[in-house]
């Protein structure tokens, strides 16, 4: 069973993504409401993958990725964001994200992205 860290400052978006994850059989989901909380939770360990937004107060999603990658090179990170420009995608990949999902998205889109790294239904 996968344990996912889900970081997004929008409670609505966290609920939307949580519902998609649950539809994919992922129920062990820890939510972070901003970037600082995300890095603190990640430091405690035990996550199989991270899903993060880009635009968040405190640390941005890119800063979250860079912070995680200072100590962890392997845990898969998927960014889910409205930032769809090629330069943004490139910036995220260079920071260390493993995959990138642009809003709006479907549960099938999330399955395709997350399923590369962790078991999903």
């Amino acid at each position, binding site marked *: 069973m996968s344990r996912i860290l889900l970081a997004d400052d*929008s*409670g*609505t*978006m966290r*609920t*939307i993504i949580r*519902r998609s994850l649950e539809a994919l059989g992922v129920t062990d989901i820890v939510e972070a409401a901003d970037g600082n909380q995300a890095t603190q939770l990640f430091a405690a360990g035990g996550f199989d993958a991270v899903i993060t937004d880009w*635009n968040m107060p405190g640390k941005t999603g890119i800063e979250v990725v860079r912070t995680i990658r200072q100590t962890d090179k392997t845990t898969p990170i998927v960014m889910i*964001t*409205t*930032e*769809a*420009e*090629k330069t943004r995608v490139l910036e995220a990949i260079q920071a260390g994200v493993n995959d990138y999902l*642009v*809003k*709006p*998205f*479907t549960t099938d*889109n999330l399955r395709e992205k997350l399923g590369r790294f962790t078991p999903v239904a």
Partner: protein
Amino acid sequence: MIADYINPFLLSTASVFEQMLNTQVERGQPYIRKAFEPQFEVTGIIGLTGKATGTVAFSLSRETAMKITEILLGERPNEMNPHVVDAIGEVTNMIAGAAKARLAELELSLGLPTVLIGSSACVAFPSRATPISIPFDSALGKLVVEVGIVQ
């Protein structure tokens, strides 16, 4: 020129409804607004800045707003509560964000979405911007996306 701005919002609105709400929208004829009259009771607003500035407004009825919230969050709201406000703000953000990606040459950034509730609310667009209204119909109800951009 106006079509260059409007088409990305036509596509982004259809995409958000199809992918996030599993609902098809039927586009009406876009028109230039002659006055800042209110459209519907609930309006999500987001500002755009970059090589152009502008405002995007996503307007719909309370009932349509609550139906959208129910689909997104899985629970039917009993009233216009903060969950409905957040849900409409998020949909507005996605519509503007997906359109922004199609206007990459303008290097736009999005502001934080604001949601107005009440039929007396008016949306003031940037001066010199000619707001274009794009009406849509859907199984969830009628809605309007309004865009005013100055380059």
